[in-house]
């Protein structure tokens, strides 16, 4: 397999990576996570000039860390969409310039499709892509041939984690904050709803769960009159997390049964949640399903997954598209 440089700038994260033979030689994310924390769930600067400032430096650093000379690259890959137009433009312009200078092909990649194929599992499988911006169930009949089964109708699961963390005063990013506090709580203390668990389709809804949590937090039913507030918060966090985990696991497994596949995969930022992984592992063991879990570095926004999917397409002899532009509203291509 060839060596590729990949650039990802679909939202507020700038990332570059070098992959070769399926291996990630380098993967750098100009993460602003540390800068976010003091503001509680907020991005201090995501202006496009931030992308502009970081993209060239990131590309050089990715090549340096990978010990790959630009001339040794076989191709360049970039996120074409979906995403913010001004952010995508910066990445695509940088990638296009580089490909042109090197005389190498440029592969435009769909951000969600890259998440979809970032977990190690053999097709056919049902994939759950679950992050702050997306919650999708996809049936992958074989690599490159996939169909959307369902998606969230309101909030993404990761967004629900973040907003609930904010409501509970737990800070940002919300996923890790909830998970940490939930360890000390009783997941059965509050009987939160499981919206759309039995809806008969493959869609999700997390907005009502967020509202239920807000209501419960305003008037908590504590286990004891003298229950300290930290324990109440822990119970709320644990019960909320249990509800989200149950919905995600149950719906994914039902989709696997309905599509008669023997494997499922989980990718996207929420795959970093340990409780979700434990629950999926137990459920898949029980039902004798193979489970592919995206490694942590590939879960949050990154360029390595863009490079890996591009390398796969290149190796499979996929045609190199020409005359394309950014696609901010690109829906998942179904083939």
């Amino acid at each position, binding site marked *: 397999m060839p060596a590729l440089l990949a650039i990802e700038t679909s*939202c*507020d994260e700038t990332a570059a990576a070098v992959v070769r033979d399926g291996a990630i030689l380098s993967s750098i994310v100009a993460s602003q996570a540390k800068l976010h924390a003091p*503001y509680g*769930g*907020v*991005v*201090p*600067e*995501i*202006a*496009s*000039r931030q*992308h502009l400032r970081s993209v060239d430096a990131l590309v050089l650093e990715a090549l340096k860390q990978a010990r790959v000379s630009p001339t040794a690259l076989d191709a360049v890959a970039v996120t074409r969409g*979906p*995403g*913010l*137009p*001004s*952010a995508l433009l910066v990445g695509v312009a940088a990638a296009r310039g580089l490909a042109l200078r090197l005389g190498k092909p440029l592969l435009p990649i769909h951000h969600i499709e890259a998440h979809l194929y970032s977990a190690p599992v053999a097709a056919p499988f049902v994939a759950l892509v679950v*992050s*702050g*911006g997306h919650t999708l169930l996809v049936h992958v009949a074989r690599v490159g041939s996939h169909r959307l089964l369902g*998606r*969230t*109708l*309101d*909030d*993404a699961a*990761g*967004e629900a984690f*973040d*907003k609930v963390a*904010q*409501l509970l005063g737990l800070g940002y990013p919300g996923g890790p904050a909830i998970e940490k506090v939930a360890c000390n709580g009783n997941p059965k203390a509050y009987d939160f709803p499981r919206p759309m668990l039995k809806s008969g389709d493959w869609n999700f809804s997390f*907005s*009502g769960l*967020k*509202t239920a949590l*807000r209501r419960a937090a305003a008037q908590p039913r504590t286990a004891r009159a003298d229950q300290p507030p930290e324990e109440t918060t822990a119970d709320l966090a644990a019960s909320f997390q249990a509800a989200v985990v149950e919905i995600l696991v149950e719906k994914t497994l039902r989709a696997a049964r309905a599509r008669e596949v023997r494997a499922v995969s989980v990718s996207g930022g929420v795959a970093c949640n340990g409780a979700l992984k434990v629950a999926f592992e137990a459920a898949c063991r029980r039902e004798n399903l193979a489970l592919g879990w995206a490694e942590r570095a590939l879960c949050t926004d990154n360029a390595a997954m863009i490079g890996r999917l591009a390398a796969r397409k290149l190796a499979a002899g996929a045609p190199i598209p020409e005359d394309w532009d950014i696609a*901010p*509203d690109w829906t998942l291509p179904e083939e």
Partner: protein
Amino acid sequence: MSVARTVMCAGAEDTERLGREIGRALQGGEVFALEGELGSGKTTFVRGLARGLGFLDTVTSPTFNLVHRYLGGRLALAHFDLYRLKSPGDLELLDLDDVMEEGGVVAIEWPRLAEGLLPERRTRRVRFDDAGSAQRRVTLV
């Protein structure tokens, strides 16, 4: 001076219906500044606007993606969410001022940072308050 109108919504269906009724009458160029706590019905209202414009596909919260655009209805609808932003400089990435000049409909959740950019004459302010159980009090200016 416009007069404020207050509507009580019994639940999410009511909030969506209110948005749908308003959406049906839109001419293009309107900017909705939507204020209210987490879970107060802002995204549900925008889903209604989209339905009223004839857009029938999924309408989801744009908090993480910052903007969702719904094309295919009578008018284009751009749905912004500034919840994650902290400084007005962050708006640069969103091209908000350009989008507000495109003739479609714009809805902005958590609009505080964009206050200086909003075209006052075309801006409708909608405030969502929790009024107990699933009820919402929606104030339109």
